């Protein structure tokens, strides 16, 4: 196995397709009608217009930073050109509603569409323009596989015809094969680098039927692509696990699957067969309905399985229309950031925690606490710099500030991190407040932030402190003089101090003073640390420590 030096775009995609180890996995978002949302048009308008396709796909390229992207994801283009009626929708690709061969048209009447029929010229012109605008991008031309096209033309009746009239089915598939070969040629002439044969209906049949009804018709398509020195991919979405092996044996350089098939299962078979593989970000639960962190987590899982060897990172199929762009942007960033991938994997356990701490009372200790949450400062450069930044300024706050590192490779640190609502590492929290995220703060900024917190605490301390003054002694002129002085001091300071006069000898002794030592003044301080909550042990420890300082 060779290692590629390619870093981006079509050279990276080519290296991955050829099974090489790559610096990172190429990212191929299958942006179909989802691109319409980026330019605020509906799916039906989008898929009928070269201009809109170009604008939408270009917007996707700019936002998602892919290495490759399809020109269009619409498995009805060939079917429409061959006479199928379509039902259009605002937020999905169209669907075939009428099958010509089931409604009177004879197979012999069908001819392979020319490049100027139906919407074929719309997508070919879009391919041509996108090629010019993005010379280094791997442009994918998606064509409908022969089996799925046959189904579009005949309907699901094909499954009965397989028994009743296998010769007819064979002739139909031959025709569909010829259409696929022609479409591949059209896309390659328009400048595409990769031809993806998308044949989802093959997931409906078993491997024996695949070998009989798919392989003989799809293999020539791949051969025609390779003769042009272009790259070939075989997409089958759905429950196709039983066919992964025969898919590899049908001749593509790459196969792509959706979330219905475990990616490691695909990897193992593909490696054995010498075929590269791609997939399989979850479309609905993660990309459509999940958050950025969910998308990152799923992508990191796929990347770990792919091992950057003969692997392309992609969603399982056509991205749903309303997928939040932020989720795809997050994947685009993650695929280029090995450090972020490691962090995401380490944080993957977060959702399983059930012992998150209540940190609402954190940071009330006398000392200011600086917590640095890292991956591991001994193994990770940014984490090391973050820790060093704090280490350097710590002596300036000796006795006032305490700092410590929490490495999230340890579970208790993940608990701590989750409890403080920290999402990124490295992060500096000051008294439980997220202050610096991922960025190494300059010395002045860090010092200023810590000093600010110290000032806040001092102010709080003054405002919240309660104290008492006890005047001890016999009633008389001397005790009265002390009392007048104390009252004047309290008034001039504006302090909230309770004054008590103690004349009983037993009470005087209980305050640690012998009656012969009076008049005496004793001060006592009370500080409220917690109300109506159950403070956590780590927090109480800080309070106790402060009593001895």
């Amino acid at each position, binding site marked *: 196995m060779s290692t590629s030096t390619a870093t981006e775009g079509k050279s990276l995609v080519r290296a991955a397709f050829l099974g090489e180890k790559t610096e990172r996995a190429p990212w191929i978002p299958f942006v179909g009608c989802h691109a319409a949302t980026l330019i605020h048009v509906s799916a039906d308008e989008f898929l009928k217009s070269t201009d809109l396709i170009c604008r939408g796909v270009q917007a996707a390229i700019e936002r998602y930073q892919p290495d490759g992207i399809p020109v269009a994801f619409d*498995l009805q283009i060939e079917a429409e050109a061959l006479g199928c009626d379509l*039902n259009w*929708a605002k*937020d*999905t690709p*169209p*669907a*075939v*509603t*009428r099958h010509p061969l089931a409604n009177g048209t004879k197979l012999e009447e069908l001819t392979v569409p020319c490049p100027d029929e139906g919407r074929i010229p719309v997508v070919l012109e879009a391919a041509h323009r996108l090629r010019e605008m993005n010379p280094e991008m791997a442009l994918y031309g998606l064509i409908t596989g022969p089996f799925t096209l046959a*189904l579009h033309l005949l*309907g*699901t*009746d094909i*499954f*009965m015809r*397989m*028994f*009743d009239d*296998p*010769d007819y089915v064979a002739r139909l598939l031959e025709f569909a094969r010829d259409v696929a070969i022609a479409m591949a040629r059209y896309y390659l002439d328009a400048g595409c680098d990769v031809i993806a044969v998308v044949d*989802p*209906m093959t*997931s*409906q*049949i*078993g*491997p*024996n*039927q695949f070998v009989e009804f798919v392989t003989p018709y799809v293999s020539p398509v791949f051969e025609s692509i390779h003769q042009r020195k272009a790259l070939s991919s075989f997409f089958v*979405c*759905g*429950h196709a*696990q*039983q066919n992964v092996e025969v898919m590899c044996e049908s001749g593509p350089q790459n196969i792509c699957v*959706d*979330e*219905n098939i475990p990616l490691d*299962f695909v990897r193992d078979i593909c490696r054995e067969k010498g075929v590269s593989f791609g997939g399989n970000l*979850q*479309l*609905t*639960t993660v990309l*459509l*309905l999940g958050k950025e962190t969910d998308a990152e987590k799923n992508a990191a899982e796929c990347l770990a399985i792919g091992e950057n060897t003969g692997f392309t990172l992609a969603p*399982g*199929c*056509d*991205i*749903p*229309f*309303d997928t939040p762009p932020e989720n795809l942007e997050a994947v685009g960033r993650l695929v280029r950031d090995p450090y972020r991938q490691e962090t995401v994997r380490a944080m993957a356990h977060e959702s399983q925690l059930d012992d998150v701490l209540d940190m609402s009372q954190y940071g009330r200790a006398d000392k200011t606490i600086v917590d640095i949450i890292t991956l591991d400062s001994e193994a990770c450069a940014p984490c090391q710099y973050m820790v060093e930044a704090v280490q350097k300024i710590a002596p300036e706050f000796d006795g006032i500030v305490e700092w410590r590192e929490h490495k999230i490779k340890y579970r208790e640190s993940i608990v701590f991190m989750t409890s403080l609502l920290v999402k990124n590492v490295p992060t500096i929290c000051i008294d439980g407040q997220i202050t610096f995220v991922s960025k190494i703060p300059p010395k002045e900024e860090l010092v200023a932030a810590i000093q600010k917190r110290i000032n806040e605490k001092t102010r709080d301390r003054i405002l919240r402190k309660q104290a008492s003054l006890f005047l001890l002694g016999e009633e008389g002129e001397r005790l009265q003089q002390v009392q007048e002085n104390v009252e004047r001091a309290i008034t001039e300071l504006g302090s909230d101090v309770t004054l008590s006069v103690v004349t009983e000898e037993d009470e005087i002794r209980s305050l640690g003073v012998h009656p012969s030592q009076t008049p005496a003044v004793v001060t006592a301080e009370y500080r409220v640390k917690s109300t109506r909550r159950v403070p956590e042990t780590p927090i109480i420890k800080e309070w106790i420590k402060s009593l001895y300082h």
Partner: protein
Amino acid sequence: MKPIPVFLLTGYLGAGKTTLLNHLLAQPELASKRVALVINEFGTLGVDGQLVQQTGGGVFELSSGSLFCACTRSGLVKVLNQVANDVRPDLVIAEATGVAETSDLYDVLETTPLDGQFCVRANVCTVDGLNFTKVLPYLKAARNQVAGADGLVINKTDLLDGTGVDRLAKLLSEINSRAVQALVSHGRLDWSFVAGLEHIRHQAEPAQKPPEEIVTCSVPNRRADRDRLVDAIESLGECLLRLKGVVDFGEGPRLVESVFGSISERPIETENPRYGTTALGWKIPKAELSKTLETAFFPDVKSLVQISTVRPGFGAG
């Protein structure tokens, strides 16, 4: 809020789901309820709009056509969300395409934001009595839909003889032994059958290998001996689901068909017919099925002349 009960209606295209559904909707038990229909096979169902209108729940058609894979699930999630929040029907009848895996429907119902809003009350699979065995070897979903059902409705029983119905019922119970079966014609099913079903979610095994019970084999030879072919078909018994072929018994091309043991033949008038016979076997090794049928055929040698005892044709012809 109580989850909305969902009745899943599955079955291959042409099994009679439409007729069955219209028949159910016309019955008083459903006519008095607010029923929402979710249709996954656009334009082909032909649900009686008037009947649906009377229920007040509405029809929700998905535009994904007959494809069902991960990329089409979001549309179903959207529709069901709308049904749950805006319609709040008494029940939902969800019609799955003939190629859908019912496990996918469960996955959708359990997807946030739908989780907890629906519960599957029963899974009913309509089986085309006449044609089911034709698609069974080729279409995975045909078998899986039967395997996952709580109730199996064998439709078109008027087009089968008693033996055929019994054989099919036995075949279905071998695929799914727990499902309750109903024998109907023209989709005439009582709602009480559906309402009386107990729902058990079927946990399908990972589909790494195809089911081993079904085999197909083809014999391309032209010339056959009628007696030996009859004997072969009879000896295969329940292991032969169907057979269809164009053969020459010495009288020119004849179309021979066998369904659940019944045998028929008729002449073919085509000028250059393609000779060959295809058989679907059940729980029989493919090699044994081939070998048994091949005993009826002669090697394809052009100059061979075979003299055999000619029996009158069997069945309709």
